[in-house]
């Protein structure tokens, strides 16, 4: 099947970019000197549908395309982009980026040839090629299921977003690679009301897949989950304040790991020695139970990629093994600095931005404990089920996470649901306090987007049930006695 949207720079496109054109542009980019240059061609199409008040209220589609040219000289980057693929426009972008090396002698790039890449998200029919009525029907099903499930549900809205991003990368090391990255994301949000008390609940998921996603995870199941969350919250009480044991549910809690550990292990912060993990490879940075990996190869996961945005081939990077720091996530620039090979973590939001070391699917691997034993071991604490988001200060590892669904643990049992709770702590300290790990490892359903220096990229997270002995819980209820 021919996709409806395809890049002008692709083989059958209106402005095909072949090795010859790429080489000419790379030569211009290195025309004033420089150590390295790359070209990043991108064509992305995204669509979204909003179902609200029982109608498909609006539908959107957006096309964005262009070429980003990067030239590096030492630690300095020259960057420019253009939004059409005429040779003149591309040449001008290459000349602008080349200015960073002004004063140097022209450097000859290696001639490029196409790299073979893996196929981690084969999608027989992309969502954008499927008629809109099908997506409308999916949203309608979620809406109907949510409304039917409880009379206290007063509002439902459901949304579906789809995109495909086609990229072509060529660099002065002779690599050329292409990829087509599909992505979908579904979400349903409800508001429940009971005698003046209003609470919201939501559920969503997706990944690099087609509409077959809904075969396993039906719109109805997501609707039920969202309703469940809102109803539970109607009975929520004020959360406790102070230090106590925290148990994290499997899957989504991986976001805590992404923030608390992941960002600090991105190699740019360590090259600049601005991370609290700088110069600590080989040291113990977590409890010995902890093995953390970043794995771009998960089939169909939101964070997976076949090739990174610098033309490097990513695989599975072991970051922490048995509590010991093994290495950082590298892009080309930092790999040069550390004298290692780039491991495929160079990602960027779009052709308008330069790549940086970024995560793909970041996971804390499972342990041996039964999840119910973990909860049973806590006399007073918090069970964190769903997270709204988090943030970290890279320089010292301090982090904050907000829970959208959490419960009090009393005498080894989940008791009352809790209102808006924050968990606050320090990455390395929290990782040292990991005292139990469940055998129930799970990858989160694809909803997470990671922001860094103004650039957003889709990521995946995963973890088992985790017990952290002592963490600050930011509620409003002071402990009595």
């Amino acid at each position, binding site marked *: 099947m021919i996709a409806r949207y395809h890049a002008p720079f692709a083989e059958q496109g209106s402005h095909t970019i072949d090795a010859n054109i790429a080489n000419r542009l790379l030569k211009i980019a290195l025309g004033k000197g420089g150590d390295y240059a790359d070209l990043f061609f991108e064509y992305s199409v995204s669509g979204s549908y909003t179902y609200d008040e029982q109608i498909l209220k*609006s539908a959107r589609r957006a096309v*964005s395309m262009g070429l980003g040219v990067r030239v590096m000289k030492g630690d300095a980057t020259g960057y420019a982009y253009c939004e*059409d693929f005429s040779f003149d426009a591309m040449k001008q972008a290459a000349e602008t980026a080349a200015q960073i090396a002004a004063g140097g002698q022209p450097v000859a790039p290696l001639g490029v040839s196409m790299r073979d890449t893996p196929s981690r998200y084969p999608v027989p029919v992309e969502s954008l090629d499927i008629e*809109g009525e099908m997506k409308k029907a999916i949203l309608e099903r979620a809406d109907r299921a949510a409304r039917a499930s409880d009379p206290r549900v007063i*509002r439902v809205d459901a949304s579906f977003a789809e995109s495909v991003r086609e990229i072509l990368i060529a660099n002065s090391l002779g690599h050329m690679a292409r990829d087509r990255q599909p992505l979908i994301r579904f979400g349903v949000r409800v508001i429940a009301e009971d005698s003046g008390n209003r609470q919201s609940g939501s559920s969503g998921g997706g990944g690099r897949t087609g509409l077959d996603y809904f075969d396993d995870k039906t719109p109805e199941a997501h609707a039920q989950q969202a309703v469940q969350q809102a109803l539970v919250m109607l009975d929520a009480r004020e959360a406790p*304040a102070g230090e106590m044991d925290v148990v994290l549910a499997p899957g989504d809690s991986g976001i805590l790991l992404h923030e608390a550990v992941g960002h600090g292990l991105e190699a740019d912060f360590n090259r600049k020695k601005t991370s609290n993990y700088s110069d600590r490879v080989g040291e113990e940075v977590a409890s010995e139970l902890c093995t953390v990996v970043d794995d771009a190869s998960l089939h169909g996961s939101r964070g997976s990629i076949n090739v990174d945005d610098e033309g490097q081939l990513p695989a599975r990077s072991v970051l922490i093994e048995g509590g010991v720091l093994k290495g950082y996530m590298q892009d080309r620039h930092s790999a040069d600095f550390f004298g290692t090979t780039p491991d495929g973590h160079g990602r960027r939001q779009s052709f308008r931005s330069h790549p940086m070391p970024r995560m793909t699917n970041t996971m804390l691997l499972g342990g041996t404990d039964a999840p119910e034993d973990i909860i049973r071991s806590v006399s007073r604490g918090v069970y964190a089920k769903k997270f709204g988001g988090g943030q970290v200060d890279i320089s010292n590892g*301090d982090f904050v996470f907000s829970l959208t669904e959490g419960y009090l643990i009393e005498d080894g049992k989940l008791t009352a649901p809790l209102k808006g709770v924050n968990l*606050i702590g320090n990455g390395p300290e929290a990782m040292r306090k990991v005292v139990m790990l469940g055998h129930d490892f799970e990858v989160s359903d694809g909803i997470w987007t990671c922001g860094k220096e103004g650039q957003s990229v889709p990521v995946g997270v995963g973890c088992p049930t985790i017990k952290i002995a002592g963490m600050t819980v930011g509620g409003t209820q002071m402990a009595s006695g």
Partner: protein
Amino acid sequence: MTRAEEDARALLDLGHSVVERASAAGADVAEASVHSGSHLSVKVRKSEPELVEEAGSRALGLRVMVGKRVASTYTSDLSEAGKRTLIEDAIELARLSESDAFAGPPDPSDLSSPSQWKDLDTFDEGVSGISADEALERALQGERAAFDFDPRISNSEGASFTRARGVSALVTSSGFVGSDYGTYASMVVNPIADDEGGKKRSGYHWTAARHYADLEESQAVGEEAARRTIAQLGAKKLPTQELPVVFDKDAARSILGLFAGCILGGSIWRKSSYLVDRVGTRVASDRVDILDDPLLARAPGSRAFDGEGLLSRRNVVVESGVLKSYLMDTYSARKLGLKSTGSAARSPSGGVSPSSSNLMLKASSQSRDELLANTKHGLYVTGMMGFGFNAVTGDFSRGASGFLIEDGTLSHPVSEVTISLNLDQLLQRIDAVANDLDHRTAVASPTFRVSSMTLAGS
């Protein structure tokens, strides 16, 4: 004609042609928004250039209605094929959408015209003229000032300087034609100091303005960034307690930003705000006045007309603690049975929704230092982290850092604590407001004090 006016003319021509073609293709309503812009960003680190980025871009957004069915499309591909896809997709998607009784453009008699628009002085040719070398020099100066300020500044995340220039045009089938242009320049310095226990402390300070001359001196920005970084050294947790909390103007602005999301018409009809049905009631202490003023000269959120072409106006949102009005576009106003407040914003991708412009909490007469001096014991918050806010209930809990206040003066720095209180109560407990309001950001507040909040720490 200036270059900006020439650019605007070209964008308007493009907008007219897209509106005509979309109407011919079956749109009953067509609205085209066209943007073009250029920017330069540079970054230095440890006195060496790290990034020089320069580019221009153009984009086209289209919103159409077929009957009362709505869709919007966007493209950065301005080729003939790109424009055709933009229009065809919009019509196809509108036919997929379902009829929404409240959809529709504003009444043509409500649209504004050029003679009514105020010149808001948002464009400075001096900003567009800044060269890469000049930008690098300013960033280098700022970073050097931070390193020179105190030997404990041991590292740097760098210093950046950015300038941007944008022109936009809006053309609608109901007869609105308008264009707008603006410039913006900013600089930030981000030094790092080593603290005990292998921790590092990162701090920053920034300046931003529509006019080049309004930027703070690079030297001053660097020094203030260093001062803020050093001040955090030795930060510790506090025991869990209830205490008065003073939010400095940056932290206060972030609180006001949460409130801003809860007064938008879209949040109200969706019942996604704790302020549903609260107009005319007390939502803050009587010391609190909140205004949204799109007509401030040179301010970041200024606009002569809104995203639907209605004349911009100053809206009183809270007066002496009482909620006076939501901020609405045409659609949300219809949903609520009210009139638009001229608060529509049109996103580059074509969608329209209500938004604040320059939202501010009014300053009082006492200085920040006087306010602190009158605070016997409390927490002075200078930074917040995390996303702990539920707009539906108003529940608020975020990570905070800053200083302990003892006997009216700042004592040791504090980090790794959270502060919590429902936003409704938080605003009602504001018992002092300072006079240090500035308009560096579109949402702006002076320092204020909340009489009591829960702090969770050790």
